[in-house]
């Protein structure tokens, strides 16, 4: 037989045909094998589109556009996200009276909100925010239930979970497992909801097959943190609250697909992060369940949060504990990238400007710590080892409610101060390895407050560990971000209690208060 066949002697179009059959990951490997293949891949629009799609953590959609057009739009989309400038906005309909802020859950381009002020006419609305760029129309699905904040969305699994709000007389509170596309019962969802209780439920997070929620029964008003499988109906973990040690704060989320963690501070003991593995013998709800509560697999003391620290009063975490939520719309639903960001404050000391300290703990670090110390243990770890702190300047005191939200590999958090003067944005771009912490100060001009200028600056502190090697190859994000002009005008109303913002695929959704005090929800699109 003839000698070895060298593929590089082939004409370009054969090689292109082979490359066309590969996916993004293999193309990335392939391009580093030799110059010829690298050039071929770089020169092909279709292949470049595949790679950039992977890089943006998105999936291909439209079949009607050609690759060149799709690549162009993808780049515009990505650039727009990075420059964060606004084009225009659409006002989303509210279900109820505009004098109430809407209760919303958002994931990707979907917003779920609910009206619960009129018990006789409960309604919830699932809404698809339109996108001019990607040609997505606005769509609605109405559900005849009121759920308040109690809804979870998971785009990746086409799953909508909500638990209707019920009065104590109205029987068991059951979860609804629906599809996002049709609103029908989810075909994979269990028919048996193991957490149906006479009581209230607070759905916290979805991670794959598991749902984390907090349940309070009307029988004894005990709180249970429950992890259950929404496909099989099996309870994987139950934690009950010891009523004699009521927490000052409690914050629970998934750490990964087999662990949850709880950040907890109690009046008589130091604050700590406790990690629990699933797979305990499930406990019955009610009764004496709290006597045999599951024990944590790991426990991390947070010395700075200890209420007994000399010279300090009780630190408050109640609203300052944030976490990038298990975003359903995450294309890379990768928990390795998650960050726990704690905000500590010491209010009520009589000081003019209480100090805030932000501590970011990459959960990756927390998890590798657990892997390295598999036995059940307590650890007291100095922050320097796994978290970084940023002390926020005085003058940003009394920050009001804030909402963390995520989309894909990116996260923005918006905070604003009670006096309407300060606005804080965290802009985290996990993928590109960029982290910015923005501090904004509203300038007061002659005619009252004017623009808000927000400077997103690289925050070396929080970038460490979270973004690893990517960060070394890419420059940090330094951007001037201006909040949409409309929004900044609204912000002059010093009485705004909540300044909620949600990240969606093409921009941000702001819940604003207009001059008369009514609430308006607007979806803002970036410049494309």
């Amino acid at each position, binding site marked *: *037989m*003839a000698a*070895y*066949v*060298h*593929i*590089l002697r*082939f*004409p370009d*179009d*054969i090689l292109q*045909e*082979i*490359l*066309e*059959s*590969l*996916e993004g*990951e*293999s193309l*990335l*490997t*392939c*391009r*580093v*094998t*030799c*110059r*010829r*293949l*690298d050039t071929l891949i*770089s020169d092909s629009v*279709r292949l*470049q589109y595949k*790679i*950039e799609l992977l*890089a*943006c953590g998105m999936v291909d959609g439209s079949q009607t556009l*050609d*690759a060149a057009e799709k690549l162009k739009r*993808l*780049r515009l989309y*990505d650039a727009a996200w990075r420059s964060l400038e606004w084009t225009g906005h659409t006002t989303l309909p509210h279900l109820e009276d505009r004098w109430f802020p809407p209760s919303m859950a958002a994931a990707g381009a979907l917003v779920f909100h609910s009206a619960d002020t009129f018990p006789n006419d409960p309604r919830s609305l699932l809404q698809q925010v339109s996108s001019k760029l990607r040609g997505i129309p606005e769509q609605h699905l109405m559900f005849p239930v009121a759920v308040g904040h109690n809804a979870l969305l998971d785009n990746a699994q086409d799953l909508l979970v909500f638990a209707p709000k019920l009065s104590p007389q109205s029987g068991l509170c059951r979860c609804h497992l629906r599809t996002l596309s049709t609103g029908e019962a989810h075909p994979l969802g269990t028919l048996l909801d193991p957490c149906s209780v006479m009581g209230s439920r607070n759905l916290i997070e979805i991670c794959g097959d598991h749902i984390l929620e907090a349940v309070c029964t009307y029988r004894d008003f005990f709180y249970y943190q429950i992890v259950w499988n929404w496909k099989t109906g099996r309870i994987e973990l139950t934690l009950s609250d010891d009523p004699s040690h009521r927490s000052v704060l409690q914050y629970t989320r998934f750490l990964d697909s087999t662990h949850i963690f709880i950040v907890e501070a109690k009046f008589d003991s130091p604050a700590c992060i406790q990690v629990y593995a699933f797979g305990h013998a499930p406990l019955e709800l009610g009764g004496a369940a709290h006597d045999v509560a599951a024990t944590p697999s790991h426990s991390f003391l947070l010395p700075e949060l200890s209420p007994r620290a000399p010279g300090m009063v009780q630190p408050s975490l109640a609203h300052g504990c944030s976490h990038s939520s298990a975003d359903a719309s995450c294309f890379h639903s990768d928990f390795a990238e998650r960050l726990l960001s704690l905000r500590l404050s010491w209010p009520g000391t009589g000081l003019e400007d209480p100090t805030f300290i932000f501590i970011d703990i990459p959960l990756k670090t927390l998890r590798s710590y657990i892997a390295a110390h598999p036995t059940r243990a307590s650890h007291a770890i100095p922050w320097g080892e796994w978290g970084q702190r940023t002390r926020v300047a005085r003058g940003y005191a009394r920050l009001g409610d804030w909402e963390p939200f995520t989309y894909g590999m990116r996260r923005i958090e918006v905070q604003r101060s009670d006096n309407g003067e300060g606005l804080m944005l965290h802009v985290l771009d996990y*993928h*590109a390895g960029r982290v910015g912490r923005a501090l904004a100060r509203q300038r007061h001009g002659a005619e009252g407050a004017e623009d808000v200028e927000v400077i997103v600056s690289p925050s070396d502190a929080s970038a460490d560990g979270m973004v690893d090697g*990517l960060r070394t*190859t*890419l420059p940090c994000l330094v951007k001037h971000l201006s909040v949409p002009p409309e929004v900044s005008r609204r912000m002059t109303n010093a009485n705004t209690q909540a300044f909620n913002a949600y990240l969606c695929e093409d921009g941000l959704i702001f819940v604003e208060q207009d001059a008369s005090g009514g609430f308006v929800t607007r979806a803002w699109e970036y410049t494309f």
Partner: protein
Amino acid sequence: MPTIVSVDDSTVPGEGSSRLLLLVSSDNKHIVVEEDIMSRSRFISKQVEGFEATSQRHAILLPFSSFVLNKVIEYCSHYRGYYLLEDDPDAAPPGRSPVREWDQEFLDVDRNMLLRIIKAAHYLEIKSLVGSCARAIADMIRGKTTEEMREILGVENDFTPEEEHSPSSKCTG
């Protein structure tokens, strides 16, 4: 220069309306095949059009061995009379070719053979076969490491060490 062989212009009896073609492989094997079978090949079709225009028929010389040629003829015989979308120059969709089970079995050959088939298919302009071969080659390298890929493809690392250590900026968009 192609050897001019005089071919009877009339229809061969007993073979329907299909005429015969004489293909000559690089190892100088003469293979007679029905024109109908080879009509999937754009290259052959164009040759035949040339014959029609000049009323001159001659043998078609091909730059690959009879071993490969027979394999291609086997492929064409299998799909004789089938319409394959990728072979239609007006309707061929861009991108990946569809998976056909028979092709996968047919192309279950060693690497060198596979590369020869794709080269022959490309020469003969049989898009469907090129697509199927490309898919089979892609399957061989999918999920492999850089080194493994180099070995399978038979390519040399011709990057300078600096280039190798700085990831291409394009890959992150």
